[in-house]
């Protein structure tokens, strides 16, 4: 490659978005996404088989639209990147099979990359960080599929997981709680909207893994100092609703929504900022679909400011799952001199963040 601005096409299919992005170095040329979200509404959550079927039907049309939108041809590409994991197994399989076929048919090198790290890599494009990724960088990723705090030493090859949810993702907790409250899917926007009219202090819902035995101290960290747990929260919401119903009282849906949201956002931001402070992180990127949440943005901003941490939130279309983030990370790996992954690798639904990309199988 003779360019310091590699032209990279990225493919994302780890959940319910079929995404194709194309970047030239750090310049975003297209971020084309086809979502099957509407097909999951009546189920109240993403159904893997429905998402996988939708990926198959959406792939070639999305590819065609992305090439048109970017005004480039496949011949001009320097590399192709694809999400190899983590994510839904059957959904990943469609994007990876397609990416391999694209690599075979074009003869272009293929990079199999990590979805979570790509959520950070997206900071390289779209004007998010105008001077490239800053030093002492961390990332707080909150979505329907994941909740993690990462430390990023080198986006292309050195990323560490500081903490994550041990059960449900935060977005999943929103979906389940919205179902209990009869608010529909996706739960995040519905709860966020209703929470504005409620009292966030009306009910004190539990903050998971916040007890001293899990937290420990900075010197002697407990087993879950930076981890989250949200499965107990939806149980607490359900119990609260039942208590009102059993007493023949009207359920204060707005107060419950506000109190639930406060519990989620409080524990996410408290632990994230703690992890940043104790690991010298002074720049934090907030990514994932739940980064659109009003209260999460507000409280993360407040607590980062108080701790002297600079908070950056990419544009909403770059926070949700998309192909541009895969292309953006792919370009960084190409520039870092990473070797392609070949075409024999497998998908890895539980790929750890320490694997920024897969080595040749």
């Amino acid at each position, binding site marked *: 490659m003779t360019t310091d601005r590699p032209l990279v096409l990225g493919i994302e299919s780890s959940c319910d978005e079929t995404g194709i992005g194309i970047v030239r170095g750090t310049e975003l040329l297209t971020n084309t996404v086809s979502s099957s979200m509407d097909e999951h509404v*009546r*189920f*109240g959550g993403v*159904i893997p*088989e*429905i998402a*996988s*079927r939708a*990926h*198959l039907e959406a*792939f*070639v049309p999305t*590819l*065609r639209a992305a090439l048109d939108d970017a005004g480039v041809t*496949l011949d001009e590409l320097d590399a192709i990147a694809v999400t190899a994991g983590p994510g839904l*197994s*059957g959904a990943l*399989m*469609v994007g*990876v*099979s*397609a990416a*391999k*076929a*694209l*690599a*075979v*048919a*074009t003869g272009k090198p293929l990079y199999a990359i990590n979805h979570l790290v790509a959520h950070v890599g997206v900071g390289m494009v779209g004007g998010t960080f105008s001077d490239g990724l800053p030093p002492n960088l961390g990332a707080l990723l909150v979505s329907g599929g994941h909740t993690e705090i990462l430390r990023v030493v080198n986006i292309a090859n050195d990323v560490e997981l500081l903490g994550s949810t041990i059960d449900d993702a935060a977005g999943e907790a929103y979906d389940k709680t919205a*179902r*209990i409250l*009869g608010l529909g899917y996706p739960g995040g926007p519905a709860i966020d909207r209703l929470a504005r009219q409620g009292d966030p202090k009306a009910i004190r819902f539990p903050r998971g893994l916040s007890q001293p035995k899990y937290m420990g101290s900075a010197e002697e960290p407990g087993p879950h100092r930076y981890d989250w747990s949200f499965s107990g929260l939806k149980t607490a919401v*359900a119990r609260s*609703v*039942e*208590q009102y*119903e*059993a*007493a*023949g009282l009207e359920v204060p849906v707005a107060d419950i929504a506000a109190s639930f949201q406060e519990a989620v956002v409080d524990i996410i931001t408290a632990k994230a900022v703690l992890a940043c402070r104790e690991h010298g992180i002074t720049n934090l990127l907030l990514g994932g679909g739940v980064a659109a949440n009003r209260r999460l943005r507000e409280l993360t901003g407040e607590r980062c400011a108080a701790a002297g941490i600079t908070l950056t939130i990419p544009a909403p279309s770059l926070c949700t799952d998309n192909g541009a983030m895969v292309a953006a990370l792919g370009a960084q790996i190409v520039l870092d001199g990473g070797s392609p992954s070949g*075409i*024999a*690798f*497998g*998908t890895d639904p539980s790929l750890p963040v320490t694997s920024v990309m897969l080595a040749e*199988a």
Partner: protein
Amino acid sequence: MLLLALDTSAAATVALLHDDAVVGRFASADTRSHAEVLAPAVHRILSDAGVAGTELDAVVAGVGPGPFTGLRAGLVTARTLGFVWGVPLYGVMSLDALAFDAAAGGAVPAGSAFLAGTDARRGEVYWAAYRAPSQPGALPELLDGPHVGSASALPGGQPLVGRAASLYPDDVDGVPSFAASDPDAASLARVARLRLLAGAPLRDTSPLYLRESDAQVPGPRKRATA
């Protein structure tokens, strides 16, 4: 006529057919690694044959029925190859390849009815009913199907070719020489070629899932009462 065919309805198989000659082929017995092995197989077969994808007359995909994840790996591969190379893309029912194989191999009497059946997992089979051609080398006629269901519910009194015969020997009248056979890409390509030569229509590459996604719409939450 130069055809590249892929079938992932059971095993992962790839074949390159030049007129009626098989120039290259690949088959993996593993039914759960389609996403790993398919692209390398396509790459190797074409490069061994010194054929560029753009020289193909068509890409042919087996559209099932077959287990969902593997089936999709083949279909998205075929669709993407066809799109990039700008060559026609056709679908063939995977059971047609099995039926053609059996008829061409003389495993079923000319003009007689028979069944083709593959493993649908969960104790069921994918199947279709055919009539063997009266002339050798012609295409069997599809009489019924494809369907998915219990092997014990298949129409009786007809010989069955395909893996369903070895999985459910008590339920079906299996043809021993084809009792462990899966759809093969070379036969799939031959079926497509005969149809193209005859000017007969081919399918598009819509998958034959035959089963719904198993998703359940959650019922309303039970209300607590005082």
